[in-house]
């Protein structure tokens, strides 16, 4: 699979979801869990299967108004691709 496009609509893959470990929010999937921090968590929270990658980049660029959107786009697509390979995210 290729990287997500600007028009891709990322979402959790079947059977992957948020969970709690103590007070921490974690992502649960068949083989285990990951604890995301900062931007990773924000990106995944925006992945509702409706928003496009371009829209997610827009929301994040608005939040960190000093950051370069091209850099954000690069980070977001690389992050989603890595989760897609683990079969945690689909787009």
């Amino acid at each position, binding site marked *: *699979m290729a990287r997500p496009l600007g028009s891709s609509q990322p979402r959790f*893959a*079947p*059977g*992957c*979801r948020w*969970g*709690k*470990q*103590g007070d921490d929010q*974690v992502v*649960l*999937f*068949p*083989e*285990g*869990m990951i604890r995301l921090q900062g931007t990773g968590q924000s990106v995944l929270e925006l992945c509702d299967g409706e928003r496009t990658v371009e829209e997610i980049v827009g929301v994040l660029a608005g939040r960190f108004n000093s950051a370069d959107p091209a850099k954000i786009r690069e980070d977001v697509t690389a992050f989603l691709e890595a989760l*897609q*390979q*683990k*079969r945690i995210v689909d787009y």
Partner: protein
Amino acid sequence: MIPNPLALIAEITHRCPLHCVYCSNPLQMAGAKEELATGGWLRVFQEAARLGILHLHLTGGEPLARLDLKELVAGAHACGLYSNLITSGIGLSETRLKEIVEVGLDHIQLSFQDAREGPANWIAGAKAHAHKVALAATIRRFPIAFTVNLVVHRQNLDCLEEMITFIEQLQPERVEIAHAQYYGWALKNRDSLMPTREQLDNCLRIVEAAQQRLSGTMRIDCVVPDYYARYPKACMGGWGRRLMLIDPAGRVLPCHAAGVIPGMQFDNVLEHPLEWIWTDSSAFQRFRGEDWMPDPCRSCDRRSEDFGGCRCQAFLLTGDASATDPTCSLAPMHNVVENARLQAAGQGSASEVVWLYRPNPE
């Protein structure tokens, strides 16, 4: 400080309509009358969640043999556990699956014995294959994670490419290619299950090519079987470090096979809180940490990665549960594994195989 366990393996029954020749269940299985009742399991799940456990693996035997499976899944979901049903699929209709998914099942792991019907049923000792194929298509229509589990061994490894293509068509997100491990019934059938070195080398090559080809579509997990590896596996992620297993009668074990080790006492959830069993019971403390380790493990750099290997395998192959796992190339008793490999290499063809099938407990 002892870290929390991360996962609970609940063997909710030992009953199973299949008779797989590599079944990891103990030779002494629990009967239906000994099984923990619904309420007992539900209380245990709550205790597990409070203890920090995230994943619940419902297994057996065949977990579908429990008519209260839906209540168990619902109870697990209510306390926040991520639930996984490990099944042969026998006893699962679309209606029952729908009910279980609706109450919160997250993941289903369906086992296949082969891509070809005849050999699959030969290994399972039952006519199960056609049902599994039909069921896979049904499962894929539900919004849960779907993993196919394929146990590989000497009798099916030569068809690995065909099996991967077959599984691809079932469209799971994942496939787990698991080499048979020699505990329980599998140890009894080891000579006919153990692959040759050549089969193993081919297997690794085929898996690597398939991983590349299917990257992002179907994840393929496969590990080198420990009889052919240089170092042992970190069995269960280390004794009493990550996992707890509860057998049908409620006894809590550090792993599937620990019941074979003589002189152990496994406490029961009917008599003790799960937390106490994890932190204080003698069974979980027996091989936790490094104090029990013999040479060469105690001075080996790998001891914090593999924890000296598997205690049950050490006992089964050397008669001493505190020995270095003989699958380790540094182990004093490594020759028993070398001999087993040689013996396997000298085995004849499939037509000469006489299996010891796993029976179904009353």
